[in-house]
């Protein structure tokens, strides 16, 4: 059943191209809603085995070369499917007003979503890689055609970085394939690779995935790409695409090369901590709202990598929880930034601060406050649950990293509050009269309200009851073999 997320989304994408323009968004909405429904059903199903990577489909594909069309699912992939469904639906809702070439727009958007579903469900390395690379090109077109600020540069940079990461992953996969003679992930997870191979192939593979996960210093595609992308594009980038990298790093790099991971884990922790602090510090100095959020994405993804580096049950489970949490929160922040930009035609914080947007857009203001609180890690939101779990996990392995990261969290709070204040609650330095007329028209549309509520609900639900996800994530993490005691 869960495999239908992939087929449904691909079918929707192709179907869209053949329809008249006004119908495109409705088909996209139905497709993403269907994907979310299927994902949620599987997620809440009682009888699912969350602990093991359970096969759902397996048919020979290129038998002469040992490739199978093999899909499988466990608690981690289900979590990722869920966040993909949420983000995709919200992204469609927030692009309700795309006027230029809507069919093509939703076609590329659904391709990204379908490819991501595929990545999260693949249990064959070749299949995994096909889906992983499939996501690259749609992003280029989404950004280059419908983007804003410096869009061609941002699109090309993002695409080339993704492809660079893909090339590194490719080398790693080839190394796995040629030494183990198999591409089947469950089989490979039991295979003992030669220690020397693990030592050189692990960093190649991990770095390749981490490029997409926004690891410092290869993160620069993320802020540029986010800024250039249209609203839905940024939402998908933050909500799904960055998770593809993190998921790949966990499922393939860490799980297949435990010895390589032991050798390199402290370096991962180092890069993760640098990323958290550095990106937060840079975000503090940005004047473009989307740049602030873009760097905050890099900072939050640093936590994911830190959780991986901790290498114990709590750290890794927290990292997966953070992938979900940041997916929802990042998408929400970008959605709201997009909604502001749509009305004011600026994202410059200094300009926004003179507009007193909290009056003109009360709903968006409230939503933005909630998103900022979630992003800062206020208890009650998912960000807190995730980050605290990661830090507890990391405490056992790298206590010093936790201390430094604490500073980072202060910085995150600082830049988030700064952005919040400047964008919605700026002081009206010019008095009422002059600028009241410039107040942009338009409260949030129904589509926007629905999309924002969906994401806020998700982050609140998980924040208040993290067991919902952790019960499904932890058994799956426990069966991975790289865990440190």
């Amino acid at each position: 059943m869960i495999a239908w997320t992939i087929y449904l989304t691909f079918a929707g994408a192709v179907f869209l191209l053949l329809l008249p323009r006004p119908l495109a968004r409705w088909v996209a909405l139905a497709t993403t809603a269907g994907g979310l429904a299927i994902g949620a059903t599987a997620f809440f199903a009682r009888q699912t085995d969350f602990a093991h990577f359970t096969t759902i489909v397996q048919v020979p594909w290129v038998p002469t070369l040992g490739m199978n069309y093999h899909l499988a699912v466990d608690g981690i992939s289900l979590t990722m499917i869920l966040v993909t469904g949420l983000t995709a639906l919200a992204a469609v809702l927030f692009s309700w007003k795309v006027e230029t070439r809507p069919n093509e727009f939703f076609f590329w958007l659904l391709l990204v979503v379908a490819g991501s579903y595929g990545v999260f469900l693949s249990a064959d390395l070749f299949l995994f890689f096909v889906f992983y690379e499939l996501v690259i090109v749609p992003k280029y077109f989404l950004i280059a055609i419908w983007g804003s600020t410096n869009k061609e540069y941002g699109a090309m940079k993002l695409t080339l970085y993704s492809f660079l990461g893909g090339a590194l992953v490719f080398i790693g996969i080839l190394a796995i394939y040629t030494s183990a003679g198999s591409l089947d992930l469950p089989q490979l997870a039991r295979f003992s690779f030669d220690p020397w191979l693990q030592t050189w192939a692990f960093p190649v593979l991990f770095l390749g995935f981490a490029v997409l996960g926004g690891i410092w210093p290869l993160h620069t595609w993320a802020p540029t790409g986010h800024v250039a992308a249209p609203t839905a594009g940024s939402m998908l980038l933050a909500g799904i695409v960055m998770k593809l990298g993190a998921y790949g790093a966990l499922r393939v790099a860490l799980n297949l090369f435990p010895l390589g991971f032991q050798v390199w884990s402290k370096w991962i922790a180092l890069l993760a901590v640098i990323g958290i602090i550095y990106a937060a510090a840079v975000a503090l100095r940005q004047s473009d709202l989307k740049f602030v959020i873009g760097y905050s994405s890099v900072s939050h993804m640093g936590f994911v990598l830190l959780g991986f580096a901790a290498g114990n049950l709590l750290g890794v489970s927290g990292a997966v929880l953070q992938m979900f949490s940041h997916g929802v929160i990042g998408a929400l922040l970008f959605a709201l930034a997009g909604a502001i930009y749509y009305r004011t035609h600026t994202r410059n914080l200094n300009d926004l601060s003179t507009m007193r947007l909290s009056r003109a857009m009360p709903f968006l203001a409230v939503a933005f406050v909630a998103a900022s609180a979630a992003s800062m890690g206020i208890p009650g939101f998912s960000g807190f649950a995730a980050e605290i779990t990661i830090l507890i996990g990391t405490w056992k392995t790298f206590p010093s990293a936790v201390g430094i990261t604490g500073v980072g969290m202060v910085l995150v709070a600082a830049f988030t509050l700064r952005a919040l204040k400047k964008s919605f609650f700026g002081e009206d330095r010019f008095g009422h009269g002059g600028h009241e007329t410039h107040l942009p028209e338009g409260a949030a549309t129904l589509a926007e309200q629905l999309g924002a509520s969906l994401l806020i609900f998700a982050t609140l639900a998980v924040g208040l009851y993290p067991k919902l996800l952790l019960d499904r994530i932890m058994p799956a993490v426990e069966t991975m073999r790289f865990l440190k005691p």
Partner: protein
Amino acid sequence: MSYLELLKLAAPEAIVVLTALMVLTIGLVTGRRQAGATVSVAGPPRVARPPDSTPGICALVAALGLAVAAGAIVRLPGHAMLFHGMLVISPLNSLFQIICLVLAFFTVLLVRSSRPLPNHGEYLAILLLGTVGLLLLVGSEELLMIFIGLELTGLSLYIMTAFDKTERASAEAGMKYFLFGSMASAVTLFGLSLVYGLTGTTSLAEIAPRLTTGPGAPLLAAGIIMSLIGFAFKVAAAPFHLWAPDVYQGAPVSTAAFIASGSKVASFVVLGKIVLVGFAPANGSAAWHAMVGGWTPILALLAALSILLGNFVALVQKNVRRLLAYSAVAHGGYTLLGLVTAGREGFSASLFYTTIYAVTLVGAFGVVGFVRRETGGDDLLHFAGLRDRSPLLAGCMAIFMLSLAGLPPLAGFFGKFYLFSVALRAGENHGLLWLVVLALFGSLISLYYYLIVLKVIFLDEPMATAPVLEDYELGARSHFLPKMTLLVLAAAVLLLGILPGILVARILASFG
């Protein structure tokens, strides 16, 4: 052996030759009548647009002949050998003869996407003769016959390149191609004669056991290197690629498509057979820490040079055909990777890659032909806004470009995966990793320029000054066939990417 039997076994070649003669006759008969009609028109000279009927009939007959020839190959016996390997019928040869015929078939169908050439019948007849050369090239395992096939293909292509008499570039390209080509042929012939002198035989299967002299022997080395030069020229491997950019750009579009597809596939088949069968004992090793003299390090060097040079130079091209030419150099480099492994698996990967590459390029040149006919040029700026003018052509071009860049789910992706995985497995301790990393680096660069082409097509505003010579309704009857052909090619690229097993299994099975 009776003559009849010989004719039976050589039926495909004979059919293509007969078709060529038929097309020539039709072209001459109808063409002369039209020429007469044009002369009799009084008044100011106007650009005579040849009526559509003649080229249509010629192309139809040519396509039909190619299809019949392909059918004849299917009906051949599984294994047969004539005159010590001059003509060998084996599953592998038959498979690639069919592939060459199919590529020629599509080229013929797409001839009419571009500007009509004068003397259409003659052009198609020469194209068919070139196809006979390809059939001989693929179907032979004997040095002399291979050389004859090489020359027959080469001479046809020189003429086809220079065929557009109204274009200076065409004549220049033809001249360059001819000079470089005949030089390379001479060197190859010299090399082959050295090999013959050392072994006393021209049959590939008999050469291998007689190459008893150590691989370092200078005479043998000279023989091998010189014979490889001709093939390096044919597949446009750097540094023997210098003809490619001018020919791809200057020749009539369909000629360029034929050079990039059929000619390339046949050259790789025969190159593979020569090195893997004929020169088998002298293969050496191209592994990073264990280089051993032989032909693999030579091919590895050619591959590395082609990948780097092709990709870097393609970055700065402003003309799509020139860009395709340099990317062809790079793709030739990737394809050589499979041969460097000196094994069957590698050969199969190379053949798969070159086949899908050929299919892709026929399609890409088909699109170029349309654009050239529409706007009168094929620079990048002529492609601007193609998406608005013809979504179909733009979509097809996107598929071709992304397949060349090696992105899933298109055939180029699987081709690269197969090729690189075989290359990595071949050497002990991942000895060929250096070449694979280089190739991946190359494809990273290539993604940039392929995306630029797509950016121009999908993003840029059409040139204000672009002269639109013809309207581009898909419904226009004269465009229907070429457009359907393009669609079929694009579908093939997609299908071979999703179900590559179809072709891979065939190729592997044909090795026996």
